[in-house]
């Protein structure tokens, strides 16, 4: 939109009882220049038919900060102008008639230091159900350094995680134990042992493995730690298994986490569905107890996937880096779950870089300085296999956990063979990349050559050679002409 003037009503008139448009109440300030200390949110606003876009965007600013539906005189007891969120820019969304990007600045004093719950209660609170809007999506946030510094950040971080595990220079390898449900503790531990001994660094509980009739949590933890220690002795390498401590109450979670700690586990896991406060509690617990904290983003697609309504995953990734988890599932691009390459790249940058420059083609709308907050290890999981190793390394880089669940356990010659196939494929690809080879194009050749001295890899390549998941993404950046597709 062009140069515009503020239409805010000032003085006595502003506080006359009755209803006033949000854009006239001070929530639309087109000349406002955001301060370095402001929190900025970018919303995709789709007003109901007939609602003025500027008014709709001002309403989002109002309802996510100080406003209610009518004028209240008690505003006059406060420094109301400071506390009002200010929508300062409204742009039409490219190729999406009827939707607008609203840039809204919030004063830092609106937020309790170090609390994701407090931040989200404002930013994604009431406002998402506001009737004059058809749909609303939180696309991105700029978190000022002063605010970032009030958070602990990842309990361990990529660098220290690698140091503790003594694993450098290559992605880490993991697998989720399958079947997700039904295995007894004893059988479950068998899968863990085989996968770790075969060459994986980690195994993982699935999101819905907690404590069920077929396997109570203590059984799982005891057998898993037997498997981890056995595999460590068999290989001379540090191994780990993400013990899911997700439970009904904080007390239960602490009890499970303490038990994992007592058994010598180096990592525990939680699900996103436990909520922001519980996540932050567990992050603090993990820091105190030298534990790596894995987060499974269970439930996120209910609000991240659709482009017009909800919260973008890039925002969730930012919140989780602040909240302090060490691992987060961030997409595979080539696997079975939603993930446009450019958008996914944006998520990975948010997890791993100390500074994210604005990059619209990756869906990153703001410069973001992380102020030396620890780096968060992205995890790629869901429908990936050894034959894609060159693509995975190219798209996701080196600081990532590649999790091949089916791609390990479904190997025709067993779990160890599956694990070995993945590890050999990975090491061969890293070797070739470091030698300066064009590994993206020569990938299949590099894998075929490695398979000459590794039967399990040859078998894996034969079984899964044609498996791809090429579907158009529902969540692609707005600033590329056509949605990109994984190849």
């Amino acid at each position, binding site marked *: 939109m062009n140069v515009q003037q503020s239409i805010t009503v000032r003085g006595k008139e502003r506080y006359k009882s009755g209803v006033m448009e949000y854009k006239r109440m001070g929530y639309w300030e087109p000349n406002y220049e955001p301060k370095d200390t402001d929190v900025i949110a970018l919303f995709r606003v789709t007003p109901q038919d007939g609602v003025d876009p500027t008014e709709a965007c001002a309403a989002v600013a109002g309802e996510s900060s100080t406003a209610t539906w009518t004028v209240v005189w008690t505003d006059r007891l406060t420094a109301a102008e400071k506390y009002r969120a200010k929508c300062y820019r409204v742009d039409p969304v490219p190729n999406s008639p009827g939707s607008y990007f609203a840039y809204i600045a919030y004063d830092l004093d609106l937020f309790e230091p170090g609390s994701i719950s407090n931040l989200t209660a404002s930013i994604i609170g009431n406002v998402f159900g506001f009737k004059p809007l058809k749909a609303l999506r939180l696309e991105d946030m700029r978190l000022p350094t002063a605010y970032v510094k009030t958070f602990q950040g990842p309990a361990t971080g990529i*660098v220290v995680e*690698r*140091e503790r595990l*003594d694993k*450098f*220079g*290559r992605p880490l390898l993991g697998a989720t134990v399958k079947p997700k449900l039904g295995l007894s503790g004893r059988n479950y531990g068998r899968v863990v042992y085989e996968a770790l001994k075969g*060459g994986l660094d980690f195994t993982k509980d699935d999101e819905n493995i907690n404590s069920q009739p077929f396997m109570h949590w203590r059984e799982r933890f*005891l057998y898993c*730690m*037997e498997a981890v*220690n*056995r595999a*460590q*002795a*068999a*290989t*001379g*390498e*540090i191994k780990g298994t993400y013990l899911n401590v997700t439970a009904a109450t904080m007390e239960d979670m602490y009890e499970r986490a303490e038990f994992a700690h*007592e*058994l*010598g586990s180096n990592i525990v896991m939680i699900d996103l569905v436990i909520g922001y406060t519980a996540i932050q509690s567990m992050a603090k617990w993990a820091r105190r107890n030298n534990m790596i904290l894995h987060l499974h983003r269970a439930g996120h697609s209910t609000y991240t996937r659709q482009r017009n309504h909800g919260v973008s995953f890039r925002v969730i990734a930012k919140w989780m880096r602040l909240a302090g988890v060490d691992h987060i599932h961030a997409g595979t691009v080539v696997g079975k779950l939603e993930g446009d390459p450019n958008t996914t790249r944006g998520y990975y940058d948010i997890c791993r870089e*100390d500074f994210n420059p604005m990059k619209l083609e990756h869906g990153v709308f703001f410069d973001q300085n992380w102020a*030396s907050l620890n*780096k968060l290890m992205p995890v790629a999981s869901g429908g990936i296999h050894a034959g894609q190793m060159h693509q995975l390394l190219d798209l996701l880089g080196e600081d990532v956990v590649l999790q091949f669940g089916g791609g390990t356990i479904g190997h025709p010659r067993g779990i160890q063979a599956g694990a*070995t196939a993945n*590890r*050999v494929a990975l*090491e*061969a690809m*890293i*070797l070739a990349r*470091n*030698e*300066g080879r064009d590994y993206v194009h020569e990938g299949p050749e590099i894998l075929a050559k*490695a398979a000459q*001295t*590794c039967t399990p890899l040859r078998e894996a390549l034969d079984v899964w050679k044609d498996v791809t998941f090429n579907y158009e993404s529902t969540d692609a950046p707005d600033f590329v002409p056509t949605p990109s597709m994984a190849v």
Partner: protein
Amino acid sequence: MRVTQGCFSFLPDLTDEQIAAQAQYCLDKGWAVNIEFTDDPHPRNTYWDMWGLPMFDLRDAAGIMKELADCRRVYGDRYIRISGFDSSHGWESVRISFIVNRPREEPGFRLDRQEAAGRNVRYATYSYAAVRPEGERYADQ
């Protein structure tokens, strides 16, 4: 057994040509290359002995290969690893590490279990090689 620490343990042992290529990769990244050796490859043995200081100012992998050859002449019966160290802000740590020399026989590790209450088990991993004093561990090879 085969100790699988490091970046390339699942591949056939690297040739000198391959090692030089990896070393050059490190140097091109501006990382300092370090040579370390040990006769106790216990997974928690972080501090292998250093073969001199990390080579901070080197630009050509040939210098590293010469140091590696010297190290092998003295400690050819032990594990030797090469690592690349990145001193840039936000990392200040190892960026790659891989084994370039192994003893002919790798005896591996024993896992001891001490049963405790509630089916809890205390685990301890012992290097078979470390039964002998340091320096005498692969003497009969």
